[in-house]
């Protein structure tokens, strides 16, 4: 009995000692060790953010950034709970959200377009939709593809006699926020009955989580239509509808029409990074060649980084430098993914915002 006890005690001591030694030795011990940054949020800009993260990692191999996606709501929540080092959202923080997460900054990092991808097996040629017809489709008042309202906009296409299946986001989503804000703008019925937000009470259709799942379900479900960010529609080779803009023209969503919308809608009157961005809208901008459903998407971050647990000077510097990279050199990655580049006035605002980020009261070097 005695020997068994001794062996057991020695074994446990060795085990505990090994664990303590491992933990002790694996603490970062200087500026040359790797930095791990955690982030989460919108799936809308995810292709672009992933590209910038990869590119930045090849420039600065010691910086490892993990972007989790999950939706704008998840991002806002995570930053409010201080569970991540920074977050991304398509929907700017509302006043109540800004109260819950005080001293947050908005840094628009790219611009995307919400497109309507559809699955009509025997139809060739581009589908044209107007804002109020789109609203009626999602409200359920237009139920068939060959409804006179749709057929009237598409005289050259034979539309099938099939029910329309609408696909929407099942979770709290910034893409939903942009899309429903647009529908509220163009349809008073939608505005009264449903309204806008990151999560609304959809009158019907299938819900899927994430831009990629919506794209995937539209591809697999015949006679369906769903709203996805432009990059997802292009990556999956999905046909997208041309939407009628405020000048009456039917515009195909593309890099060009998105950039036109930005230049038309964001040339002046933008707030600074520490103010509210809820009034900023790139929807239905005035230019006759602008695509109507365009939106900024934002990186959100606390102004003073020491409120985030586990933040160190190395991490704070890495975050600030990564954000500086994204709004400058990183912008070169956006066009190939069909995201519009930031106009120079927005870059200037972002520069001031990023420079204002501090750690323990000290400003951080941006390059």
């Amino acid at each position, binding site marked *: 009995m005695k020997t068994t006890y001794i062996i057991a005690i020695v074994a446990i001591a060795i085990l505990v000692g090994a664990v303590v030694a491992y933990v002790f030795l694996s603490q970062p011990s200087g500026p040359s060790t790797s930095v791990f940054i955690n982030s989460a949020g919108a799936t809308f800009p995810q292709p672009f953010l992933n590209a910038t993260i990869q590119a930045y990692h090849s420039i600065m191999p010691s910086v490892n950034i993990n972007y989790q996606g*999950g*939706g*704008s*709501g*998840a991002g*806002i*929540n995570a930053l409010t709970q201080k569970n991540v080092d920074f977050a991304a959202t398509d929907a700017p923080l*509302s006043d*109540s*959200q800004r109260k819950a997460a005080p001293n947050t900054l908005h840094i628009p990092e790219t611009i995307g377009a919400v497109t309507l991808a559809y699955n009509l097996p025997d139809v060739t040629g581009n589908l044209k939709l107007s804002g109020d017809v789109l609203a009626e489709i999602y409200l359920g008042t237009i139920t068939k593809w060959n409804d006179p309202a749709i057929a009237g906009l598409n005289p050259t296409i034979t539309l099938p006699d099939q*029910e329309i*299946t609408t696909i929407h986001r*099942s*979770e*709290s*989503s910034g893409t939903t926020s942009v899309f429903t804000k647009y529908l509220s703008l163009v349809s008073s019925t939608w505005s009264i009955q*449903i*309204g*806008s*937000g*990151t*999560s*609304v*009470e*959809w*009158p*019907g*259709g*299938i*819900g*899927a*989580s994430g831009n990629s799942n919506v794209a995937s*379900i539209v591809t*697999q*479900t015949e006679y369906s239509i769903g709203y996805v960010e432009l990059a997802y529609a292009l990556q999956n080779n999905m046909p997208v509808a041309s939407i009628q803009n405020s000048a009456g023209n039917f515009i195909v969503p593309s890099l060009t029409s998105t950039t036109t919308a930005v230049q038309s809608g964001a040339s002046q009157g933008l707030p600074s990074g520490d103010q509210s961005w809820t009034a900023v809208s790139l929807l239905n901008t005035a230019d006759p060649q602008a695509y109507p459903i365009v939106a900024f998407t934002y990186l959100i971050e606390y102004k003073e980084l020491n409120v985030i647990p586990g933040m160190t000077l190395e991490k704070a510097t890495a975050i600030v430098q990564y954000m500086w990279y994204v709004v400058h050199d990183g912008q070169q990655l956006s066009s190939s993914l069909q995201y519009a580049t930031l106009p120079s006035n927005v870059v200037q605002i972002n520069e001031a915002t990023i420079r204002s980020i501090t750690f323990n009261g000290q400003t951080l070097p941006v390059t």
Partner: protein
Amino acid sequence: MMRRITGDKIFQIAIAAIAASALAILVANAYVLTSGSALVFDTFGLDFLTGTSWNAVEGREAFGVLPYVLGTLLTSGIALLIGVPLSLGIAIFLAEMSPKKVRVPLSYLVELLAAVPSVIYGLWGLFVLRFWSQNYIEIPLNQYLGWIPLFGGTPLGLDIFTAGLILAIMIIPTIASVSREVISAVPNSIREGAYSIGATKWETIRHWVLSYGRSGIFGAIILGLGRAVGETMAVTMVIGNATGPKAMVSSLFDQGQTLPSLIANGFIESPDPLSKSAYVGAGLVLLVMSIAINVIAYLMVTRLFKVKGGAVE
């Protein structure tokens, strides 16, 4: 001598503490769910339990879990309806009729079904089962029997029916393996007695073996039901994710939502305290539902089957 007595005492206390910790976890769970959902019950009262809206838009907030309770009950019901006969068939085959050589490998394969992660079932359901179910079951039923409300709706393959089907597949290993053990544990004297009065194999199994093991088999079914009620990922991926009044399904082929899938979809990202509290409230309703199902099952076993505790009579 003294050391053995103190050792026993320590052992007793340790075991009691471990058992108490299980109870403590349940109590802690209930406490967190109750305090977290206080806000939504304060705001909506019992309308939360009977309402059908689910609206998080600022200024229009309304939350009600009735459609999701319905969805949970429906999908679990379908899972049992399809899964129990299949599981019992598998169990009977494995315990009574299969050749001895294949018994062990086959049992192992059935139990392997339980090892598949539920998200894999969800992916398979989304990419494979959905179309099979839509083309071979839903569309034919909807075409020919669509006048029955149960088979109306929008047969898209992502609906209550497919979710129930996936759940049935997921609970088969649980019910089948426990039932197989129960049936194997039936003493041979029962079977010999049946054969001696001229019963056929099927009659023996049906009237003697299954009724002898009925409480154990019922326990297996309750285990399966517990898994079906709580299953989240696989259900979320194939159920269609309807919310609000539209989730109050009127047919098997309507898009619906269960309590677990509702919480999985919305909780992590719920943007404000009221909607977060609503999701916690849904969690509380789910916990109460699960406990109620288990209590009812226990009462049924002890009253209807006249068995005490877990023992076979």
